[in-house]
């Protein structure tokens, strides 16, 4: 990690795309970096949180993405460079301030990296954030590999500073999580402190100033649209080589981001005589460059992930300039409209029009799936077990309005503890709707980090508007799903320094509700508490607090099954479903995985599971 900071110009490192982004920020001399963790962007923050103190920059895990953008915007308005990064849906949260930052502009460079997630490896949707630069009127760069993440991000800081406008970098999961050789550049001296020069006519967006600033914004983008055509990040490849221009050709390809890589590999592997225009600087769209490329072609393939954005730009160029080029993309059905691409998908799509030898496919076999699940010793499993027991004993059914985090895995059987989920914080907001629109009982599940991120406004809404449901805060003392980042409830900050910890139950109390705090690993007490809360006729909050097992090194002694007692009722397997317990001719505990959490001991109706005496810890 420290190597990333200390590497000197010309060194070649084997970097993850996200690590390259962190290095770019250091090389660009940023003073402030802010984020809310979200896959596939998380490792940028993980790296910066470790190297920030040594690099002399300020880094924070902000409460949510909107705050992160505001932190970065104000820093850049004060004349120091700032970097903010988030997953694609995080930009939705940040968008309110992002769009306005485009109006006010910045003084020093400000870059926002949006890590999109085509195919939804770990997200609730696969929205294409290349719409945002068009929506907010800010420039967009789309790197295709870690080296380009470094180069493009550094350029983005200069561009931002020159035009006093935030710049967006859009990566995708495959680019953020690609590892390859990166030749690093020189690090810059950091200007850590700036000075905010008051200019209310620019920085206070009321209608009269906003009108002026929008005019200025449009002028800035017009100016930038005159430089994109000459950008070195827009390149033409032919027969595996970079060329400056092309001869007339029956076919051509325009591609960006990860999709370019697959198109490039396909064309080279099959030795197809097709020129590829690789676009790296994609908004404002390089119209003149694309026009010149199109003029040489009869037909063009537009290859992009996820929405037909470049395709529509190309169609408008063709319409405007009366070109005779057939366009094959998503709109005419040549390429899929959803999910990420790969070489096979692009090959199969292009083969609809051009003949070349494909890959003989081996039929896929039907094999058992392997869904992800809670780790052994995970407190979420205990919460869901107890909740289902409480409901069973009360003989009631509820709507589980859940939220975003590891605990969303409660959707899997046997927990079946997820019925509705939209976005961060929606567990509580949606429960407000269910409570008024139905007669059903509702339980909201929300994690600790998610509570701070977006759970507080809907909590206030629930109290003030007299909604009636149960909120369970699954407080595992970390932002677990993204790799264990801190949040405002913990006594340390994003750079490892001491920080005041904010109490969830005190926030709840300030809203007028006395929260019950339980240790979810105590099953009996948890069931009792849930039953009590479920039968009350008002809003209730239970905080189930126990640390994530990935953040705790200590293990309990593993448990074992007493076969003289076990009657194979399988409660431990069919209801608790801990991956450390399996049925293989008998109930067996796999010592490699058992964390000695003792939940199965409490769950066993026959008391047949016991701590191994004398076992090593």
């Amino acid at each position, binding site marked *: 990690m420290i190597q990333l900071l200390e590497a000197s110009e010309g060194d070649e490192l084997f970097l993850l795309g996200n690590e390259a982004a962190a290095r770019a920020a250091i090389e660009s001399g940023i003073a402030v970096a802010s984020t809310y963790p979200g896959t596939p962007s998380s490792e940028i923050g993980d790296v910066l949180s470790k190297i920030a103190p040594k690099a002399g920059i300020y880094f924070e895990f902000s409460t949510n993405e909107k705050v992160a953008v505001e932190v970065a915007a104000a820093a850049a308005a004060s004349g120091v460079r700032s970097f903010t990064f988030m997953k694609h849906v995080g930009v939705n949260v940040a968008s309110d301030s992002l769009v306005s930052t485009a109006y006010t502009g910045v003084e020093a460079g400000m870059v926002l990296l949006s890590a999109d997630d085509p195919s939804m490896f770990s997200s609730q949707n696969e929205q294409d954030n290349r719409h945002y630069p068009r929506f907010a009127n800010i420039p967009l760069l789309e790197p295709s590999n870690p080296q380009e993440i470094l180069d493009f991000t550094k350029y983005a800081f200069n561009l931002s500073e020159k035009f006093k406008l935030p710049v967006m970098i859009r990566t995708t999961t495959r680019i953020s999580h*690609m590892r390859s050789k990166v030749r690093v550049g020189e690090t810059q001296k950091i200007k850590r402190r700036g000075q905010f020069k008051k200019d209310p006519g620019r920085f206070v967006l009321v209608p009269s100033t906003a009108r002026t600033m929008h005019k200025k914004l449009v002028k800035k983008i017009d100016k930038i649209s005159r430089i994109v055509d000459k950008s070195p990040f827009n390149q033409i490849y032919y027969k595996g080589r970079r060329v400056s221009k092309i001869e007339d050709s029956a076919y051509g390809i325009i591609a960006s981001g990860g999709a370019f890589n697959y198109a490039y590999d396909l064309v080279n592997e099959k030795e197809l005589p097709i020129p590829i225009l690789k676009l790296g600087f994609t908004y404002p769209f390089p119209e003149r460059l694309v026009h010149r490329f199109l003029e040489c072609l009869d037909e063009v393939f537009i290859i992009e992930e996820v929405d037909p954005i470049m395709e529509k730009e190309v169609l408008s160029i063709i319409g405007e300039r009366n070109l005779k080029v057939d366009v094959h993309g998503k709109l005419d059905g040549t390429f899929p409209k959803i999910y990420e691409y790969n070489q096979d998908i692009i090959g199969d799509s292009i083969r609809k029009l051009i003949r070349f030898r494909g890959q003989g496919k081996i039929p896929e076999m039907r094999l058992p799936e392997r869904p*992800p699940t809670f780790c052994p010793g995970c407190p979420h499993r205990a919460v869901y077990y107890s909740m289902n027991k409480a409901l069973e004993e009360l003989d009631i059914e509820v709507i589980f309005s859940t939220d975003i985090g590891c605990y969303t895995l409660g959707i899997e059987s046997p927990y079946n503890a997820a019925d509705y989920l939209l976005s961060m914080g929606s567990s509580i907001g949606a429960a407000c709707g269910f409570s008024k629109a139905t007669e059903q009982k509702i339980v909201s599940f929300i994690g600790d980090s998610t509570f701070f991120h977006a759970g507080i406004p809907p909590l206030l809404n629930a109290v003030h508007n007299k909604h009636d449901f149960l909120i369970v805060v699954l407080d595992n003392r970390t932002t677990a799903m993204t790799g264990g980042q801190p949040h405002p409830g913990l006594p340390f900050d994003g750079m490892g320094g001491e920080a005041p910890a904010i109490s969830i139950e005190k926030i709840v109390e300030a809203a007028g509700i006395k929260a019950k705090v339980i240790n979810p690993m105590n099953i009996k007490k948890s069931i009792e508490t849930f039953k009590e809360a479920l039968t009350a006729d008002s809003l209730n909050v239970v905080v189930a607090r126990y640390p994530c097992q990935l953040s705790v090194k200590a293990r309990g002694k593993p448990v074992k099954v007493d076969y003289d007692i076990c009657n194979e009722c399988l409660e431990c397997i069919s209801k608790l479903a801990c991956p450390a317990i399996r049925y293989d001719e008998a109930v067996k505990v796999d010592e490699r995985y058992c964390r000695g959490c003792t939940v199965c001991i409490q769950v066993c109706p026959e008391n047949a599971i016991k701590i191994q005496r004398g076992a090593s810890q």
Partner: protein
Amino acid sequence: MKLSYDIYICGVGGQGIIKAGEIIGWAAMKEGLDVVMSEIHGMAQRGGVVSTEVRIGEARGTIIPCGHADLMMAFEPLEALRAVSKLRRDAQIVVNVTPLPPFNMNPREYPQVDRIIWELRRFSGNVYAFDADTVALDAGHPLSMNMVMLGAAAATAGFPVSRDALVDSMRENLPSGLFKVNLKAFKMGFEGLDR
């Protein structure tokens, strides 16, 4: 024209799959080869399927196309079978035979390991199936299983990175305290296959 030597590494979250890929990739880079690899982070890690794809050569995309993988390192037998469509005919297959049944299935429904190996042999005459977990235990630590697999892979015909470069990469990319055990695991894997 095939652009790269493609290695598909697969198994279950927590088996050290990404680290094995990183060690190969770093070693390839140090040997002056071009290399790209993919990693899967986030939700997939919680006991789900994990794969990493290492492409040594000119390829730019990190996803190995169907029928391209020259070598599969499968840390779990079911996951080997799941990925066969990635393999070219007669690819090298190094597979750990210790099954890890998915948490939500009855182990009795898990396909028989012998049957899995038989299926793999239909695709390739170069299947090396062995119990890498036991070898790792013999080497001194159960978590060194990924280095047993790496050692075995390094001994397969056509592996593009030298044994020395891999050992250097292990020294660079593994915690120094565990290097000795890991090196032993690597050697046992290598020699087990070399014989």
